């Protein structure tokens, strides 16, 4: 009987699985298989113990595209662009990456100079200026053929966002001559103005698609031979799509991994009645934070991934390179610093006793008693408080501090870095963190959540039961999603609502052809005339558009110019097909939970505080800080003045009493 929906998330270290069906939630965790991530997927399904015929759907999150971009290990590609504009990708926005380091260079473009070809043509704001010279296209085709091993080509012409005809003609000619090549054209990948960002996004799509295509093809065959359904793939936007679409639009999947976690956090927040949250996913080497508004993960279109602007809808994840493994150090000016260097998994923090000698954030947590001496991690590592103390003493001696002050300092400095990351996604965008709950997960998130919330004035924290497999959970509950966009670029007053309606109808028809009766959300990107950054607002009511834009501008930037003319830049449609969301029901504990006690450094005093095992707790169990709750894959430090209980969805809800 097919009843289980699966989410399988491939991370750097582990491949996680969550299966939901018939009121049950099953989880599995197996080592990732970096050489071929699809093997880990099959392993995880085997480890779950589910029969193939019990599985109705499988959503997949992966890092294949992200890693290929980070490691510059994508396809060998060519670029066809407008004559006179060969090097837009290399010039970029002409700024240097570091203001004062005169030796630092920007990342190399994804297409080498010798594989950038031009064709004679030009369109401008009013249409064709120079007709397409087909002979020049044939010259480019021959050059690509002569280069030998080109796998994909990006076709990027000026003003194609408005006039795609030349790009389409070039694409058809290339496809006819070189049928095995993957083709990405900018008017299809990102029909929006500003050539560098459009070209870079399109080029990334060409660069990543052949590799993603091979991977997904291989995965689908593995799953098919095991009698499993064809998977859907998580996009950066937080919705899943069929594998054929994903393979052809690899640039839409560069944040496939983190998107699952944010969607999972949004859904769990809804179950606990929290619509506005900031997520805090702290791992070993990095920390991801993201806003949740009105119960959903909002998307942004100005992300830069691995040095490449990808202007496609992505969950608004902000990453800082600080995590449990971040190394603390004393700088030449006499300040204590944390990161960005990380001890990684090998040798890891000093407390792992695998040869690491430098104090890390984890060592500070071990020393302070947040993580118990002797804790086993992944069956291989046994935490040594002695090693942690040695490393802290060594660092402290450089700063004239004892180990205790050094440990407290490391936590405080790391939390300041995290607080700044959370401000980037909240305060800097006009959102007050005090109006939001903090959703903490990942291996180290719940350890730091209380102290971090206190720094930001936040008074509510959510720690979900599935803290260690939240991304996989998010996959299992993700809607199918398709995002479309059309450029407009005209004054809002001049923009004919009938014309806009026709464009919306066109997009909706396209979405309905691909998805089964989707829910449609219409938005528009607007700006004041002369501005060059746009704000997206809901566009279900044409007459309310101007007012909504003024309000959104005021929220985001602190002022509105209500008498000034507004420009309409893009129309967008998001089409969704909702999947059935399961019930999560936490049982009441079988007996009154018994707490151990442990000595923990709390605000400068060593105190014996209660330590609960999360499995011993259940719906309605109360926790009063200071206390520690040990989850399967993380530990929650409940500081003084925080108290809470486990709700019906199994989430620990902590509140601060001033």
């Amino acid at each position, binding site marked *: 009987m097919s009843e289980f929906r699966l989410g399988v998330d491939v991370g750097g270290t582990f491949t996680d699985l969550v299966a939901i069906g018939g009121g049950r939630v099953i989880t599995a965790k197996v080592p990732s298989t970096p050489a071929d991530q699809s093997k880990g997927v099959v392993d995880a399904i085997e480890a779950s113990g589910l029969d193939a015929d019990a599985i109705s759907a499988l959503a997949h999150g992966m890092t294949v595209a992200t890693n290929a971009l980070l490691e510059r290990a994508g396809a060998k590609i060519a670029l066809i662009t407008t004559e006179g504009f060969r090097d*837009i990708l290399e010039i970029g926005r002409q700024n240097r990456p570091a203001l004062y380091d005169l030796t630092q260079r920007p990342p190399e473009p994804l297409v080498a100079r010798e594989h950038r070809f031009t064709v004679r043509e030009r369109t401008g704001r009013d249409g064709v200026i120079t007709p397409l010279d087909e002979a020049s296209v044939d010259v480019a085709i021959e050059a690509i053929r002569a280069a030998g091993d080109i796998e994909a080509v990006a076709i990027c012409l000026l003003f194609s966002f408005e006039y795609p005809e030349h790009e389409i003609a070039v694409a058809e000619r290339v496809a006819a001559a070189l049928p095995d090549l993957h083709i990405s054209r900018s008017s299809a990948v990102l029909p929006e*103005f500003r050539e560098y960002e459009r070209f870079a996004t399109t080029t990334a799509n060409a660069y990543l698609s052949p590799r993603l295509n091979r991977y997904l093809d291989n995965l689908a065959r593995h799953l098919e031979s095991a009698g499993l359904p064809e998977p859907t793939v998580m996009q950066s936007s937080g919705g899943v799509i069929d594998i054929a679409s994903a393979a052809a639009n690899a640039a839409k999947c560069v944040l496939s991994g983190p998107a699952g976690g944010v969607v999972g956090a949004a859904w769990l927040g809804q179950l606990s009645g929290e619509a506005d949250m900031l997520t805090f996913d702290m791992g070993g080497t990095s920390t991801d934070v993201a806003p949740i508004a009105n119960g959903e993960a909002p998307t942004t279109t100005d992300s830069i991934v691995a040095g490449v602007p990808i202007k496609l809808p992505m969950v608004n994840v902000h990453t800082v390179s600080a995590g449990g493994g971040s190394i603390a150090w004393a700088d030449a000016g006499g300040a204590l610093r944390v990161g960005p260097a990380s001890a990684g998994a090998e040798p890891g923090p000093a407390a792992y006793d695998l040869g690491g000698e430098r104090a890390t954030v984890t060592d500070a947590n071990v020393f302070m008693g947040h993580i118990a001496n002797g804790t086993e991690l992944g069956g291989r590592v046994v935490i040594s408080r002695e090693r942690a103390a040695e490393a802290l003493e060594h660092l402290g001696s450089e700063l004239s501090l004892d180990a205790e002050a050094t440990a407290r300092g490391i936590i405080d400095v790391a939390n300041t870095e995290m607080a700044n990351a959370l401000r980037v996604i909240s305060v800097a965008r006009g959102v007050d963190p005090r109006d939001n709950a903090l959703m903490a997960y990942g291996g180290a998130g719940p350890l730091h959540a209380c102290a971090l919330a206190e720094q930001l004035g936040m008074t509510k924290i959510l720690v979900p039961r599935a803290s260690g497999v939240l991304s996989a959970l998010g996959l299992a509950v993700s809607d199918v999603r398709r995002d479309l966009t059309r450029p407009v670029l005209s004054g809002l007053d001049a923009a004919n609502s009938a014309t806009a309606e026709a464009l919306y109808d066109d997009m909706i028809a396209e979405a309905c052809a691909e998805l089964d009766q989707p829910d449609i959300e219409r938005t528009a990107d607007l700006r004041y005339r002369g501005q060059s950054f746009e704000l997206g607002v809901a566009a279900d009511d044409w007459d309310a558009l101007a007012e909504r834009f003024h309000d959104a501008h005021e929220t985001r*930037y602190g002022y509105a110019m209500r008498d000034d003319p507004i420009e309409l830049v893009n129309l967008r449609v998001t089409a969704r097909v909702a999947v059935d969301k399961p019930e999560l029901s936490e049982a009441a504990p079988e007996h009154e939970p018994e707490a151990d006690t442990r000595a923990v450094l709390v605000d400068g005093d060593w105190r014996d505080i209660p330590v609960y095992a999360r499995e011993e707790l259940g719906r309605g169990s109360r926790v009063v800080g200071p206390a520690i709750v040990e989850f399967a894959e993380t530990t929650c430090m409940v500081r003084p003045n925080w108290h809470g209980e486990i709700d019906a969805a199994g989430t620990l809800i902590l509140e601060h009493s001033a």
Partner: protein
Amino acid sequence: MSDSQPTLDAITLSIMARALAGIAEEMGAVLIRGAYSSNIKERRDCSAALTDANGRMICQAEHIPVHLGAMQDSVLAVIEKNPVPGDVFMLNDPFAGGNHLPDITLVSPITLGDDDEILAYAVTRAHHSDIGGMRPGSMPADSREIYQEGLVIPPVRLVAAGLDNDEIMSIVLANVRTPDVRRGDLRAQLAANHRAGVRLRELAEQRGEPTLRAAFTDVLAYTERWTRHVIAELPDGVYRAESEIEGDGVTLDDIPIRVAVTVEGDALHVDFTGTADAVAGNVNCPLTVTRAACYFALRTLLPADVPGNAGAYAPVSLHAPEGSFVNARRPSAVVAGNVETSQRLTDTVLLALGQATEVPAQGQGTMNNLIIGGADWSYYETLGGGQGASRAGPGASGRHVGMTNTLNTPVEAFELEYPMRVARYELAYDTGGAGQHRGGDGFYRDIEVLAPATLSLISDRRRHGPAGRNGGGNGQPGENRLNDELLPAKASRQLEPGDVISVRTPGGGGWGEADKR
């Protein structure tokens, strides 16, 4: 640093340095997001900073090096006017705290409570794309006195004790070609200054006012310690270098620059004795620009993560003969000093320091200022070129180097906004100097005007290519053309529809001998 208070521990210092830098970054984000003009929004030609009550810069959002260290002069000029809480001062006078007229600076005193003494100043500076004067864009290549370059604003209250001074605003708007855009940009600057006050008060609440005050002193001392440490590593000595600016817009003659940099222990003295007197054209620098150029050169020697604040300048002393073209007096024209002479001063100081330590080959050394305007529009852009190569590797192509780092205007945004068309925008291959590591290439930016317009072109490195280093070849000088006519480094012209301006920017110098490649 004699007024030292209880010194913060290593942890609090680290936290406060990061939190203060976060405030400046947030100010910069508010300004860029809220601004109207593409010059600020797209190109980020602006900066934001906090100073202490004495005008010493505590932290800065780093966008444009030429604003480095120059913003504290604005605060010092404002302090003389007895600011009170709720005031916001506006200024652009290069001889009273400004650097050149298009850069308008807003300074707001910050207090913790309404009746408290002033704790700090919030400062934002933005390059406005027109401030009046003889030519659209307010960057005339042929100005001979400052009055031709635009409206001169001494420090005045744009907001007085919380009340908007609409009359001052109306004077400004009556003197500029694009008043709506000016108003929008100034509003964005006001919003950014306002945000600084909100966030600084929050920080005082969280960490306590004594800690905040101590942090001001300690972050300066921290950066100063680090800077002195770096200077002390340089061998003591007097290092001399010479260079030139290729004409002042009035004559084509080279204008000599001479510098002697003295390293003595952990202090640095920069002396421009022997540099030319102020010239008739507009490449003169007010002292504040010369100082910023010297600070930049020093800053490139420091590790990247040293917080940028006034502590880095404490070990530096400067002598620029009064009345010379690196310390010009009113009413000298100065608009190009900020954008071109500053580049060459940096090159020359680094050439001198290069005798004491490792430095890269020279980059393009110009901003290639291109200003085109008509009756109701003005376009201003600076163009990237070749970066100098170094021991670490080749120079990047088509980059901004030195005292600026502004973004380009996308071709599609450009053509949607202006009656102009880009005919060519691509790299000029092999214009970078040869070497074991090649210098970066310059690029071509060719623009056809579709309506009558005025051109101002202010550039340099059209005769003398950027120097290679360690045996590397020089970069190729740039070239300016109007149709078939070769233009000098600085030029002003009337343009008719169909005219094509073609700029090829210089390549960067190479590093190491080419046969070792």
